[in-house]
């Protein structure tokens, strides 16, 4: 290790800033790749991260992390641990790997863009560590499921998902392209590292790691904990970037970037984590509800951060808080009903005991959501699986790409209308699930207007044959890969009725 303490040389070694003279600053840092808002370059040089690390320390730390995590994986690969996990939990991690692994790898593009077009040497230095982090996360979250293939062939969706047109993959790509793959460095620092990572994934990974250990999935728990330690470091690129924008009078711009990405992150977060926490995690291992997690970790943290920076809670905050009561319940119902369209086995998770838990955590759940499951459960028990499967498609939002569940929010008393928002623009009809999704579109229509949702593609004749089987093939789902109920609908027979197959 170095003979000098890090503090004695760190600032000197990292501050490789100089004023360019052979090219214009606008050529070296074009606005398209690094929106500087006209802030003088020297003022960016005060950018200072709170978590400091040298390259030598970084490598030393990462080697240790990898050695630990891969050792755990190597030992457990020879055990029966995965086979003995709860079916609902297996669904949670299959969904996670598919939605996240390649997305992490794509995040290395955003990090490396900051590594080149960040407006201070300290920032570029941190972003290069972030690049290496994200490459690691992409690789490790592809390797672990690769080791599961002999027990769960659909673990290959860790790599496959982003290369398909499965609807969740389209939603994830649309979000991640907006957030980092096709974003400028300044916006990426605020939208990826501050809003998404500090706000959501850092905490999600902590929560999932705790849940994994609770259900006995030591493999996934150690993996996710290890990733979280990287996230905690590189997610701090956002704060110094926001500070500089605010100091130079661009508070409104920073606020808009946060508002935009907070809402978009929330919707995908609800889809992935909401279902896992409230329906897929075995009841006896649930330490909190999704709403409790949101209130304690996401909502509180964001309000603290808004206050710290002199920012305001987003204009849609009341609508967001309402959604934490109902949105993910509706998504769960939709994912379960359209289960052939996903690569994991959705766990109904609505046995009498689970419904009791849901009612306790979400007073009124039985009246607002249990009533749908009553009809579905009756069809299961009556041996009518065809009535528990779709014969058409849900409409999806042209921003978040997630099915329009407005009627559920209306039926539960949280929305004024069951209808989605129609928006005609440039001779084309767009449908949005919410005012914030429409607002994001309206802020920059040219960025979004060309994208076709899976329903737009269907109506344009791009999906042939134009049938449910045709659409499933378009999504890359073979019959063996399509989701089924994780426990063969045992939740519908939890009162002792004999289990019937086929749902």
């Amino acid at each position, binding site marked *: 290790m170095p003979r000098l303490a890090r503090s004695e040389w760190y600032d000197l070694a990292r501050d490789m800033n100089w004023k360019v003279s052979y090219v214009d600053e606008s050529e070296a840092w074009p606005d398209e790749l690094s929106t500087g808002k006209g802030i003088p370059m020297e003022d960016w040089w005060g950018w200072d991260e709170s978590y400091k690390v040298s390259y030598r320390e970084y490598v030393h730390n990462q080697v240790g992390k990898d050695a630990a995590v891969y050792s755990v994986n190597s030992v457990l690969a020879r055990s029966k641990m995965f086979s003995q996990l709860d079916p609902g939990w297996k669904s949670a991690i299959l969904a996670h790997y598919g939605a996240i692994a390649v997305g992490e790898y794509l995040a290395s593009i955003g990090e490396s863009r900051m590594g080149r077009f960040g407006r201070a040497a300290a920032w570029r230095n941190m972003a290069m560590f972030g690049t290496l982090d994200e490459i690691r996360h992409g690789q490790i979250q592809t390797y672990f499921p690769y080791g599961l293939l002999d027990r769960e062939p659909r673990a290959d969706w860790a790599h496959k998902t982003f290369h398909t047109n499965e609807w969740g993959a389209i939603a994830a790509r649309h979000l991640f392209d907006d957030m980092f793959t096709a974003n400028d460095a300044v916006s990426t620092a605020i939208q990826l590292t501050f809003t998404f990572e500090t706000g959501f994934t850092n905490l999600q990974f902590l929560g999932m790691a705790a849940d994994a250990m609770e259900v006995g999935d030591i493999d996934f728990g150690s993996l996710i904990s290890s990733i979280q330690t990287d996230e905690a470091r590189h997610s701090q690129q956002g704060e110094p970037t926001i500070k500089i924008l605010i100091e130079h009078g661009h508070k409104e711009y920073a606020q808009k970037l946060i508002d935009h990405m907070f809402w978009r992150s929330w919707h995908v977060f609800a889809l992935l984590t909401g279902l896992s926490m409230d329906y897929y995690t075995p009841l006896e291992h649930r330490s909190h509800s999704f709403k409790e997690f949101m209130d304690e970790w996401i909502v509180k943290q964001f309000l603290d951060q808004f206050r710290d920076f002199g920012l305001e809670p987003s204009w849609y905050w009341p609508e967001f808080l309402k959604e934490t009561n109902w949105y993910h319940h*509706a998504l769960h*119902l*939709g994912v379960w*009903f359209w289960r052939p369209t996903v690569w994991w086995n959705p766990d109904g998770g609505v046995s009498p005991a689970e419904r009791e838990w849901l009612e306790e955590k979400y007073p009124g759940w039985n009246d607002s*959501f249990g*009533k*749908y499951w*009553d*009809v*579905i459960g009756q*069809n299961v028990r009556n041996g009518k699986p065809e*009535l*528990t499967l*779709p*014969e*058409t*498609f*849900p*409409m999806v939002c042209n921003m978040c790409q997630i*099915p*329009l*569940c*407005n*009627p*559920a929010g209306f*039926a539960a008393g949280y929305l004024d209308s*069951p*209808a*989605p928002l*129609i928006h005609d623009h440039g001779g084309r*009809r767009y*449908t949005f699930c919410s005012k914030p999704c429409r607002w994001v579109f309206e802020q920059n229509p040219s960025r979004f207007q060309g994208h076709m949702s899976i*329903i737009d593609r*269907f*109506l344009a004749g791009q999906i042939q044959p134009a049938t449910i089987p045709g659409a499933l093939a378009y999504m890359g789902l073979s019959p063996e890969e399509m989701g089924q109920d994780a426990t063969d609908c045992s939740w519908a027979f939890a009162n002792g009725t004999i289990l019937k197959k086929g749902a």
Partner: protein
Amino acid sequence: MIMAPFPVQGITEGDFVVVLVPVDTEDPMTAVAEKIAYHAVNRRVPEDDRPMAVRHNGRVLAGDATVIDAGVAPLDVLEVVYP
């Protein structure tokens, strides 16, 4: 009279989701209601003996009005209600 496939966004009263429903331009609203409700009633919403009607932009349409007569545009939202 030429019937042509016509996509609408359908909502059945009491259901949780908006669905894509292909109707025909010459379908009367009674048929449109049946086509939309088919995807929700007895699947997630209990059967209801009351007559169904179609609401468009806040207005309940006559049962014999066709899609074209009623001025419905492609991908308009049609709600099946029990008035």
